[in-house]
């Protein structure tokens, strides 16, 4: 990684971009699986059964993490842009990551 990028605000940006891209690419697949309930409900059940596989659970944990990270990072940006705060963003970015971990962690724990 180019050295001028090694600082917390840049990492927050990078994480936000990657999580957004991953979610944008995941959504069409997610919508398509859900619509199977309309046309092929047995296939949907088959898919849900397959999704009990621990590797899939891990991937789901990843997805929830990405969603939470993207949302909390987005809230941070909205606060930055619409509220005249300053100087607190680094700690807030860290707190955002922690909160995201918490939410996705609880998902994972309940999923086991």
């Amino acid at each position, binding site marked *: 990684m180019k050295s001028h990028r090694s600082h917390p605000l840049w990492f927050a940006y990078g994480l936000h971009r990657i999580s957004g891209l991953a*979610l944008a690419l995941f*959504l069409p697949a*997610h*919508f398509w699986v859900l619509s199977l*309930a309309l046309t092929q*409900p047995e296939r949907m059940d088959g898919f*849900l059964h397959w999704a009990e596989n621990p590797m899939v659970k891990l991937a789901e944990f990843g997805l929830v993490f990405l969603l939470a990270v993207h949302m909390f990072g*987005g809230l941070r940006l909205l606060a930055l842009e619409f509220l005249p705060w300053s100087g607190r963003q680094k700690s807030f970015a860290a707190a955002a990551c922690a909160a995201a971990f918490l939410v996705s962690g609880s998902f994972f724990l309940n*999923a086991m």
Partner: protein
Amino acid sequence: MLNIQLYMAQRLSAMLMAPLVLGHLAVMIYAIQGGLSAEEILTRTRGSAAWFLYYGLFVAAASVHGAVGLRVIVHEMTGLRGWGLWSLTWGFGLILMFLGARAVMAVTGL
């Protein structure tokens, strides 16, 4: 490659989705208790105007937000602009809207 209108669409859809995402996460954590099955989900969602509105709104906001976000990433990484970039933005947004609408209708039966 944003102007103020696209920026506002992005930020407003984000603000709208914040509570919807929290609700979605809560619903997911509740739903996966004791395993997941199509029947379990559908008995709760079939015929529900409330779920239709909730997820309908979610799909609309996510389509706008995702399309604008993807636009920015594609422009900055590939340099695509003009007509090509607009087609990508609208194309992706409409695909998400269409697939999402189908999913909402499939799950609520409305």
